[in-house]
């Protein structure tokens, strides 16, 4: 038991290092995303709703876009009939981004918060150049 204090010191240092991210950030909550809906196209809408319900879009927009690309490119089906019967042209540029023309204020907010980097925008162009 001669090395007892060395072992304890080592353990204490190890625990301190491992928990470093926890206590250094304690009390500093990350800023929750606050996506902006303030674009000219959205402001003109009589009812501010996306092609589907907000909850659905929040959770499933990636699956929806994934299916859109398959239907439009591989099946040639370019018209999407939403669950409320409204028809939309399948296009990230001409449909999604014509309303959400503020990519940096809308898309990036959540993507940065969650640390996801979708590669959609390496080809599809956002109107604000983002």
């Amino acid at each position, binding site marked *: 038991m001669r090395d007892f204090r060395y072992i304890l010191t080592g353990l204490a240092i190890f625990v301190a290092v491992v928990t470093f991210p926890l206590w250094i950030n304690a009390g500093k909550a990350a800023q929750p995303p606050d996506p902006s809906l303030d674009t000219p196209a959205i402001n003109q809408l009589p009812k501010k709703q996306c092609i*589907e319900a907000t909850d659905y879009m929040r959770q499933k927009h990636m699956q929806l876009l994934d*299916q859109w*690309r398959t*239907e*439009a*490119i*591989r*099946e*040639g*089906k*370019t*018209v*999407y*009939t*939403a*669950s409320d019967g409204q028809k939309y*042209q*399948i*296009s*990230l*540029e*001409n449909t999604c981004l014509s309303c959400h023309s503020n990519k940096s204020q809308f898309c990036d907010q959540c993507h940065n918060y969650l640390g996801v980097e979708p*590669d959609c925008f*390496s*080809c*599809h*162009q956002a*109107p604000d150049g983002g």
Partner: protein
Amino acid sequence: MPITRREFLKWGGIVLLGLGAWPTVRGLAANRSTYEANPQAYSGQKWGLAITMSTCWPHYQAGCRKCFLACQREHNIPDIDNPKEEIKWIWTEPYERAFPELNQSYLNPRYKGRPFIVLCNHCDNPPCVRVCPTQATFKRPDGIVAMDYHRCIGCRYCMAACPYGARSFNFQDPRPFIREPNPAFPTREKGVVEKCNLCAERIDQGLVPACVEACPYGAIAFGDLEDPTSNVRKALYAVGYAIQRKPELGTKPKIYYLV
């Protein structure tokens, strides 16, 4: 009254069955959205072009490149001034390179060295589609050989397989080289192969290809090769003879040149 084992199993089974069926019921109830083709889309079995170079040349020599420019603007084609990295959808080749098998010793000077507009031939039997390991390039039911850039891994097998050199590889990010970006169409990214898509996106909206629309002299006829009343068939029958690029390879190109 205490529940018997028999009762417990019976009701337990019913509850489990209900829980198992719930996701299916919910899925069926939620799936009310549908996908369909645009009713205005052109429908055809085999889209093709017939290019009358004799109509084009008198104006082309004066510098009419409206078809090139329309295509470039429409599809955000980068203007990279380096033959090793340039991106080509529609361009010109001299007769001898476009039609090497028709380069006779005593070739009519009418054709010798003259520029021919060339583009992807949208072959009926496309070698690029056969070799693509990811099915990123595929033949649509209407005959267009399309690219799905989401699936392209940049292996360039298609470039090796294409006998017409109609495909270009993006060695660098093309965006800085796009003169007038068209916000309605995507750009490409570094590491994918691109080519003419016969304006599939326009045909799906009921519009003719941009090059056909842009030509002020009607040198390019577009239509369904299977339809005898289509513009392309009318153009083919109106002249003496039509040639195709490298027909001996059996790729069955759908671009015809009227001579």
